């Protein structure tokens, strides 16, 4: 699987640098973004003061254990619910302050591929209707043009044209995920948020879907926020990777840095968990860290460093003082008291 993907790996670093120098606002910027869910059990701190930047055409990978707040982040970006604090800037504009027309325009440019292929398609709508829906809502083209676009989309994601008359239950998980991707692609968005887009699929199907996403990126320059709990999958997709732990970003760096020189103990633990024959050579003689215990409850996050309860290097300072994200290298930041120097 890795080999197949590597052939398709395109790096967009050139484009990204160009943007940075031309003083264009980043495509997506999250500023001190927090989300607290109030439940019967108490306040769930799903996301705590997250800062992230995503440039045009870039793929940012977001990785972390299940329950660390990845889906919450995705849903905040999609404006499915409002943040408790902080800002989301799309194209430099705060999405909370957009009027109706701006909101609709943003929806067209910002699309999402969902995790569960068995829940993400309306069981009572034909595939053709599902793919036509975005075009109808955004008044793109007449009936003939829309049908043509639906056919084009089906072909683009590798499905038969007759699929348009079929219903979701007639398709396999991988085929449904292709339909979900076609739907996200229908309006030619600038950014597609993929939340665990391949996690529910068989390993053999997974590579095909990842390749499709890479193809689309190469062809249309679409940016991805690629979310997964699987670091190996994220690494192959991403230009940069952000590692999340319990609602916080603990390390952020270009993909290769994360892979070759992970600085945060949690990132190192995720690396250790990757079943790979190359792991030894990658980690060198660094100590292999096995994650112990469960993710602490976001109802009551640990004091100081949130990783403190599971970190093999934890000291008194870690319990008392929260580490801030600091630059370790160019474009590489890490939040650990002892990771730098």
């Amino acid at each position, binding site marked *: 699987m890795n080999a197949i993907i590597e052939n398709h790996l395109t790096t967009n670093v050139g484009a990204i640098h160009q943007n940075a120098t031309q003083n264009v606002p980043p495509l997506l910027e999250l500023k001190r973004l927090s989300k607290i869910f109030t439940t019967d059990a108490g306040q769930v701190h799903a996301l705590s003061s997250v800062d992230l930047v995503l440039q045009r055409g870039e793929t940012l990978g977001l990785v972390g254990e299940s329950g660390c707040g990845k889906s919450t982040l995705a*849903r905040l970006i*999609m*404006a*499915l619910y409002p943040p408790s604090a902080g800002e989301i800037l799309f194209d430099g504009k705060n999405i909370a302050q957009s009027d109706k027309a701006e*909101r*609709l325009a943003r*929806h*067209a440019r*910002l*699309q*999402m591929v*969902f*995790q*569960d292929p068995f*829940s*993400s*398609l*309306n*069981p*009572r*709508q034909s595939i053709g209707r599902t793919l036509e*829906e*975005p075009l109808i*809502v*955004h008044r793109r083209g007449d009936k003939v043009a829309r049908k043509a676009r639906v056919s084009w989309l089906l072909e683009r994601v590798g499905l038969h044209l007759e699929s348009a008359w079929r*219903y979701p*239950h007639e398709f396999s998980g991988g085929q449904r995920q292709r339909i*979900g991707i076609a*739907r996200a692609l229908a*309006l030619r968005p600038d950014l597609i948020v993929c939340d665990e887009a391949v996690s529910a699929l068989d390993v053999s199907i997974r590579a095909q879907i990842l390749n499709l996403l890479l193809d689309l990126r190469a062809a249309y320059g679409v940016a991805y926020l690629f979310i997964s709990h699987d670091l190996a999958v994220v690494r192959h997709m991403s230009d940069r990777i952000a590692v999340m732990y319990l609602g916080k970003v603990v390390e952020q760096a270009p993909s290769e840095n994360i892979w070759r020189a992970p600085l945060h103990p949690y990132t190192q633990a995720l690396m250790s968990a990757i079943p790979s024959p190359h792991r030894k050579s990658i980690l060198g003689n660094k100590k292999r860290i096995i994650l112990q215990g469960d993710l602490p409850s976001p109802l009551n996050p640990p004091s100081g460093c949130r990783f403190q309860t599971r970190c093999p290097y934890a000291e008194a300072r870690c319990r008392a003082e929260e580490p801030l994200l600091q630059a370790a290298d160019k474009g590489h930041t890490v939040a650990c008291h002892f990771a730098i120097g």
Partner: protein
Amino acid sequence: MYRIILEHILQNRAAIAGLLLLVAVILIAVLGSFYLPGDPWEMANAPMLWPGDDPDSPLGTDIMGRDIATGMVSGAKVSLLVGFASAFISALVGITFGALGGFYRGWVDAFLMRITELFQTVPQFVLAVVLVAVFKPSVVTAVFAIGIVSWPPTARLVRSAFLVLREREFVLAARTLGMSDPRLILTQLLPNALPPVIVISALNIATAILTEASLSFLGLGDPNVMSWGTIIGNGREQVVDAWYICGIPGIAILVVVLAFNLLGEGLNDALNPQLHKR
């Protein structure tokens, strides 16, 4: 999708039996008014003829000499009309309340559910009697009264379906397209919440027919329209001497109510995805 559901219905004995009985009643109502176009209130023959006594009155006559067969045909039309129309009103009100409450949650939901509870605490039949009595007995008031008292279970059903559906990923996907709320409700959530509403509506039709008969029996029916309940009400004094006057419409009510119950039960099985897997 609907073809599969239809196949399941056709494999279900209860549904088939209910459907056949229903077709029979509809045929009686349609063909009957063709063959027996007379006025059911008119004195057509000698009074108190037993069924079979006179071929002109195959089901006999009542104490006023009114032809029971003609009355039965008129009653079939009234029963079906009141059953379908009031179940439709009940579904409309129930879907509206349940959909808005389940979709918007919060204070909208709290407000709508409070009203629903209010309607549920008053006994249905008592409320129907009061409504009909207040607004003059007629077929139209009966339809509205029965519809107005029977929607709360539908509202609760739709609400709970919407609460689950609104979190499903295909609904989130539609939201992220920028779809408007009415479009979201009508094209994404409602079609997926409808099957159980169809089942409960079939049962509502049965209840409505019974309620209408009871109202007419109590003399709260439309004074110009002969319904099965009216015939029973008129014949109740002679029930010992001429039981057939109450018996014939009584059996008819039983059969129709049974038909819609069977149909509802069959639909419930046919639309229940868990049963399909076995």
